[in-house]
């Protein structure tokens, strides 16, 4: 599903290189986890996959279903089925959450040649998803993410993921800031969508999330590259020993 | 369709025009720059309310008559003039004293890396740095500066060598004194070469109630990476009409801090023209003004970001207005089309202490580049009642509570001065002002 080959990335307009010869594959139906110390480049990787303009790809490719997406605009990537749950979701003052959700859902439907949702149909879907995630209705009327607590913002990301039905979801520390109940809800959300057609790349610092979302693969990232790949046991090992063994390996 | 307005000269304008030809012959240096500057004045006349930049400060009305340009004082006059003790006395590593716009003596030692030549001497000998005088286009056309150029009698040309970390402040004391009202015009040019660091302190003092007309200008040209600190203290005579101009031309990655403290004078106006000519410079420009009686004080500021990255400018102007006094703040941040990444923030806050006080704020943004973050804020009002109540509930008297609040309010603009002793002197002057106010209130004079 997602294939990253020999990716080199630096900050646009600066010399600072963040990702070096990064190679990573996520197969259809797979749930892959990335763990790694602060500043190792995990968020950068997620941004580059999604097409944030602040970064410059010096070398390498990112393929989604075999198509190189690096030349595509962020909205085209989204329409192609890519979703990024941001580590720090943006606040958009003045734009009601409902308005935003409708705009996003219809924009993607349009790009895929589907008809716009009718208002009742849209509201039905949003309400269903919001109920599932325990998001109160009045939050949907407030401006997107403005004044939301850390956990509320994360829930809102998952709500969007649910509504936009991506095939490839990248989740950047979605578990940070969530209470236990919300963590379970998020995990359920992922597990419910776990099937041969969907794939997930879950960035996290904590084993706890992986207790609920059993990953197929665990990657360790350090200083801009994947330094070790293994099964779920790798996460347990990191939990016990920390990143000490990997800091020098990079 | 536009009606041509024929200008009628005021008595002051007519007097200046009449005196200029004779005066310029006696003033040092080449006549051409003076003539050019005088032509600028001739074209505009003394600025009045109809001139946008002088909307709130009518110089034409304030200057009914043009006081005669002061002659060079003799030794006896100098001694009398310098008898009063300057609050900043002893702060400079080197101190140049000026009486009525003429250099009368230098105390202390000029720090290494620094050269200072009195302006009259520099003009007479054709000092090479004079080629850089008056070169800031942003300030061209300014009437106060033009008048200073036309009539400048003396001052200083200061050079700070590249990389010099100047030890101790360079201090300039300007005293205006005399049995009758006089006009003065002193001018300072300071060229700070790349990477140098220096602190310039100017103090303007006048005794008595006479309506002296002072006009001083300080030009700072800062080379790449220079760090310039500037402090100005205005303690003019009570009746003074005092104009002052600071121009700053900032090279790449320079840092400028300039603080003006204005306390006395009937009508004072301090103007700042700062241009970010090199990328990524930083400027902090502050003003602390305390007014009482019928005083009128004007702080006018133009900051132009003209290079990329546009750099960072911070302006903080704090004004306290008592009695029937009036304060003016006019500040403009200009961001030129290519000065991307400019970060400009300007604040003017005024506290009106009495019903008759007035404040005029005109903060402007003029922005031609898109990738900027600029903001201005302006507030005016009385002291915060709730805070006052809080302090009083802790047993502090009303007058004392007010004094505390005022002190911290204007103190914020003074605190950016890095030099501790000088900062303390200025805080002390604010406290002094507050003590006098408290005494006046206690005496019942403030009713």
């Amino acid at each position, binding site marked *: 599903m997602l294939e990253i080959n020999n990716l080199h990335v630096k900050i646009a307009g600066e010399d600072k290189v963040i990702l070096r010869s990064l190679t990573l594959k996520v197969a259809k139906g797979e749930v892959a986890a990335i763990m790694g110390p602060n500043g190792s480049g995990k968020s950068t990787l997620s941004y580059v996959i999604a*097409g944030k*303009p*602040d970064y410059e790809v010096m070398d390498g490719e990112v393929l989604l279903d075999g198509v190189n997406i690096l030349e595509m*605009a*962020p*909205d085209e*990537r*989204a329409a192609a089925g890519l979703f990024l749950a*941001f580590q720090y*979701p*943006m606040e*958009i*003052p*003045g*734009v009601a959450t409902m*308005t*935003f959700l409708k*705009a*996003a859902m219809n*924009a*993607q439907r349009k790009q895929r040649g589907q008809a716009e949702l009718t208002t009742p149909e849209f509201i039905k879907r949003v309400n269903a998803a919001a109920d599932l995630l325990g998001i109160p209705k009045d939050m949907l009327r407030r*401006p997107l993410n403005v004044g939301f607590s850390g956990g509320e913002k994360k829930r809102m990301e998952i709500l969007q993921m649910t509504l*936009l039905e991506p095939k490839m979801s990248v989740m950047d520390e979605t578990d940070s800031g969530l209470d236990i109940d919300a963590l379970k809800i998020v995990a359920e959300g992922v597990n419910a969508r776990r099937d041969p057609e969907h794939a997930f790349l879950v960035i996290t610092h904590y084993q706890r999330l992986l207790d609920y979302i059993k990953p197929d693969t665990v990657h360790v990232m350090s200083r801009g590259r994947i330094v070790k790949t293994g099964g779920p046991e790798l996460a347990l090992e990191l939990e016990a020993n920390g990143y000490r063994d990997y800091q020098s390996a990079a | *369709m*536009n*009606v041509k307005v024929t200008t009628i000269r005021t008595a002051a304008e007519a007097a200046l025009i009449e005196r200029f030809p004779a005066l310029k012959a006696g003033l040092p240096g080449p006549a051409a720059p003076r003539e050019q500057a005088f032509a600028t004045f001739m074209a505009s006349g003394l600025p009045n309310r109809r001139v*946008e930049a002088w909307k709130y400060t009518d110089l034409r009305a304030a200057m009914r008559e043009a006081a005669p340009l002061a002659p060079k004082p003799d030794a006896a006059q100098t001694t009398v003039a310098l008898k009063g003790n300057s609050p900043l006395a002893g702060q400079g590593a080197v101190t140049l004293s000026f009486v009525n716009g003429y250099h009368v003596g230098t105390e202390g030692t000029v720090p290494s890396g620094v050269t200072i030549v009195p302006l009259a001497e520099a003009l007479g000998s054709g000092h090479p740095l004079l080629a850089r005088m008056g070169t800031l286009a942003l300030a061209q056309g300014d009437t106060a500066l033009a008048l200073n150029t036309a009539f400048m009698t003396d001052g200083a040309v200061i050079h700070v060598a590249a990389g010099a970390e100047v030890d101790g402040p360079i201090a300039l004391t300007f005293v205006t004194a005399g049995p009758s009202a006089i006009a003065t015009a002193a001018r300072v040019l300071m060229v700070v070469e790349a990477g140098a660091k220096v602190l310039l302190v100017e103090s303007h003092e006048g005794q008595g109630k006479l309506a002296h007309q002072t006009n001083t200008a300080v030009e700072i040209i800062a080379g790449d990476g220079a760090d310039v600190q500037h402090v100005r203290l205005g303690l003019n005579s009570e009746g003074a009409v005092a104009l002052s101009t600071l121009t700053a031309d900032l090279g790449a990655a320079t840092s400028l801090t300039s603080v003006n403290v204005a306390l006395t004078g009937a009508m004072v106006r301090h103007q700042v023209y700062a241009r970010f000519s090199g990328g990524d410079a930083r400027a902090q420009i502050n003003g602390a003004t305390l007014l009482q009686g019928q005083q009128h004080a004007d702080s006018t500021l133009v900051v132009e970001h003209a290079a990329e990255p546009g750099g960072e400018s911070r302006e903080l102007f704090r004004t306290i*207005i008592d009695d029937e006094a009036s304060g003016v703040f006019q500040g403009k941040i200009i961001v030129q*089309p290519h000065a*991307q990444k400019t970060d400009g923030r300007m604040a003017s806050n*005024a506290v*009106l*202490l*009495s*019903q*008759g*006080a*007035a*404040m*005029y*704020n*005109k*903060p*402007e*943004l*003029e*922005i031609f580049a*898109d*990738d*900027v*973050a*600029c*903001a*201005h*804020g*302006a*507030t*005016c*009002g*009385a002291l915060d009642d709730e805070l006052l109540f809080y302090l009083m509930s802790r047993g502090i008297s009303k007058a004392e509570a007010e004094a505390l609040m005022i002190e911290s309010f204007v103190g914020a603009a003074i605190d950016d001065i890095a030099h501790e002793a000088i900062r303390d002197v200025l805080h002390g002057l604010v406290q002094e002002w507050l003590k006098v106010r408290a005494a006046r209130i206690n005496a019942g004079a403030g009713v």
Partner: protein
Amino acid sequence: MSRWRSLPEPTWARVSYPQIDFQDIYYYAAPKMNGAPKSLDEVDPAILDAYKKLGIPLREQEILAGVEPQNRVAVDAVFDSVSVVTTFRAELAKAGVIFCSISDALQEHPELVRKYIGSVVPVTDNYYATLNSAVFTDGSFVYIPKGVRCPMELSTYFRINEKNTGQFERTLIIAEEGSYVSYLEGCTAPQRDENQLHAAVVELVTMDDAEIKYSTVQNWYPGDANGRGGIYNFVTKRGDCRGKNSKISWTQVETGSAITWKYPSVILRGEGSRGEFYSIAVSNGMQQVDSGTKMIHLGKNTTSRIISKGISAGRSQNTYRGLVSAHRKATNARNFTNCDSLLIGNQCGAHTVPYIESKTSTATFEHEATTSKISEDQLFYCMQRGLTAEESTALIVNGFVKDVLQQLPMEFAVEAQKLISISLEGSVG
């Protein structure tokens, strides 16, 4: 007229325009019809079509189409300075509300018109107001009697149709003690190569406890990409809060015109009176907008609030210019001003020129202004969710102007939102 010829053209606004040859603009152009139409149905369908294209398919169209809308709006349509039709007149009359053209009002209520006209904006006020006073032909007149809450929204259309026309209409609204009226003004003009001038005068008067809410949606032709053609919109709008605790609120959405130059103002005379100004000014292409307000605090305990949102794109220049002043007797006057500018693209300009004058220590004035470009991070976030760059921009801009849109009657807010998107078309990407 002779007074006007002797006034110099004002030069203080940040707009540049070739000097208008006033001899070249007809002072008055009656619509090319055989007498005034009895109803808007008689109006050229091409004009109605132009409404749609220009993005103002306002509810008035429903009225035209014979649809009975849920909330009715009484319309007075002014075409090329002549009031052609006023709807719902009879029903309004039942409530005692007078809503008609000024020319009719002069015939039917001469004493009222004479008492108030020119009392807020005197003939000599400014260059364009003088021009208007000299040549004005018609306009709308509204009178809300004591204690009456106007049963429906009132609305006027201004259209400039005729080639090279100057439109000089005059509006006068009087709200007697305890009354309320909400008034909406929509303006359109079809595309023309020549510059046309609009120099209207609007006067509002509120007595004790009365309130007037005046909303404008203006999308006159802005000229082509090179700045050719378009309307010069030089309007004088002023409200006088004459009575105690009265209120005047101006809301404007300005997206059209080659040059806009208007400062809807409020004179806060009555004790406890309140003035509000909510503005969205969008400029694109070669447009020049210089707009703002004046809040003149004269009475005790008067309050005012200014929210201005400027958006500049293309090669346009967008200036907020405003005055807040408290006179000596305006004890406890309060003002809050917030004025934000958003820049889209690097060839436009955004300028803020506030004058804040306080002559009493008991007044509290707070003013804040910011200028920034549209946030890249917000754009990226929206695009990650599948919105195009243009859609993302429109969404963020709508969020930016939300506080002001909320002040408009609901249906008009929706239209205004569309208008803003339309006028920003082509500014990104």
